[in-house]
């Protein structure tokens, strides 16, 4: 690990200037479960690490009239076991409990989970100067791309690794962001960016910005959500494919739905066509299958990952039927 200086931040306002304007010079430390790995592998080589845990009051879960507010440093374990998070948000708790291991959930934070860097083995290896590491090749294109993107890829084919982001997007969540000119708020729908727009980053945070709150709006009555994740190794693993679905039901009819795919695209992949298709439909096996097929219509697999199409279709239809 490269040597670095660490700074205990003392307030939200001072973090942007501690981070500075250039990516790579400084890193925020929250839970550290992703950062420490990147530092050990020399993927991140900052001069400064800015510790956010020294800022009081960034760890909370509050149920308010207009929805749920979660502090950025709230650990995944605290979200998983919180009794303040009621049933309408259970998709979030389902997703969080599918992340990593107890050891990692005890330390890893919700903002860190959303902002974690990709797991692509070319990106994570010092030996490959891939596009994300400043080189000019995406090695997955001619290489081993079993776990890479089937939708939205190019010129880099990472998949977004966060489970919680998929669930939060299905809940129409937004994030509050602190920058040098004060706070701003952004829907998660707009927060993540595809590699064709910015190959070096997975979200729209600038170098001197960080997430200061997760905001989940209250959902309509009779809304339920489900998170389904497929892992190669059930004990701990990132998603080969996952889906978060929420549906507002009246009887057997769906009046509103959200559908977000994980593990298949460089960002949590919302499928608005499917959401519209489900609106006003009686949920039957045929409807669920049609929705699943529609969700993967844009898929364009690589040499080793076409299996993800059927896998994802299966969990989409399973999720829809489970909620009906």
């Amino acid at each position, binding site marked *: 690990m490269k040597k670095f200086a660490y700074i205990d931040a003392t307030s939200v306002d001072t973090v942007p200037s501690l981070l500075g304007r250039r990516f790579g010079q400084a890193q925020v430390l929250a839970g550290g*479960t992703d950062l420490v790995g990147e530092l050990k592998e020399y993927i991140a080589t900052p001069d400064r690490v800015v510790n956010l845990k020294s800022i009081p009051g960034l760890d909370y879960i509050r149920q308010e009239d207009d929805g749920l507010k979660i502090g950025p440093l709230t650990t995944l374990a605290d979200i998983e076991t919180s009794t303040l998070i009621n049933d309408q948000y259970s998709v979030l708790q389902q997703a969080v409990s599918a992340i990593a291991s107890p050891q*990692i959930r005890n330390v890893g934070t919700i903002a860190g989970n959303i902002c974690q860097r990709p797991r692509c083995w070319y990106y994570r290896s010092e030996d490959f100067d891939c596009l994300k590491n400043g080189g000019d090749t995406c090695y997955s294109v001619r290489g081993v791309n079993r776990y890479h993107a089937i939708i939205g890829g190019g010129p880099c084919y990472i998949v977004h690794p966060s489970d919680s982001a998929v669930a939060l997007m299905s809940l129409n969540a937004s994030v509050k962001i602190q920058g040098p000119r004060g706070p701003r708020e952004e829907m998660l729908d707009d927060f993540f960016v595809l590699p064709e727009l910015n190959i070096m980053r997975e979200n729209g945070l600038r170098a001197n910005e960080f997430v200061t709150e997760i905001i989940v709006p209250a959902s309509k009555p009779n809304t339920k959500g489900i998170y389904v994740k497929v892992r190669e190794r059930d004990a701990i693993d990132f998603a080969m494919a996952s889906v978060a679905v929420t549906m507002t039901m009246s009887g057997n009819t769906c009046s509103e739905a959200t559908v977000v795919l994980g593990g298949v695209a460089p960002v949590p992949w919302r499928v608005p066509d499917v959401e519209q298709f489900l609106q006003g439909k009686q949920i039957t096996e045929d409807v669920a299958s049609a929705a699943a097929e529609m969700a993967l219509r844009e898929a364009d697999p690589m040499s080793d990952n076409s299996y993800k199409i059927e896998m994802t279709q299966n969990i989409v239809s399973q999720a829809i039927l489970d909620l009906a």
Partner: protein
Amino acid sequence: MSSKVHVQARINGDDVEFLCEPRQSLLEVLRDVLGYTGTKEGCNNGNCGACSVILEGRLVNSCLVFGFEIQGKELQTIEGMGSPEELHPVQQQFLENAALQCGICTPGFIVSTKALLDKNPDPTEAEVRYWLAGNLCRCTGYDKIVRAVLDAAKAIKNS
């Protein structure tokens, strides 16, 4: 800029102070600076749980935490559990169930088990397996380990 950090903490009930570089993990500090070599290094990236310790009542991988992060905090390691003369009930049940072979993962499993039983003294088998997802054993498989944990829960309850 890479000057050492002065850290004071409580480890297994003892006040400890040390100097470390900001880049040193808690695992490195425990083993190389302080000599707590019961905590093992396995994968060094959060997958195997061999380095599990209990920080402020929470089970963590010491390889993913920096040494400086324990400033002012309370840490429990395998060295704080039992003694050769009087084993901790979890250690005793690992022995009685032969729940180990090469032993490198064992301190991590025992510390993880303690963290589980501290919170949930009467876990189901499913809860034990879910909790131990972060600990890898490449020798015995997991059935004997799970049995040892369930027996330890019983032993603690009956003691």
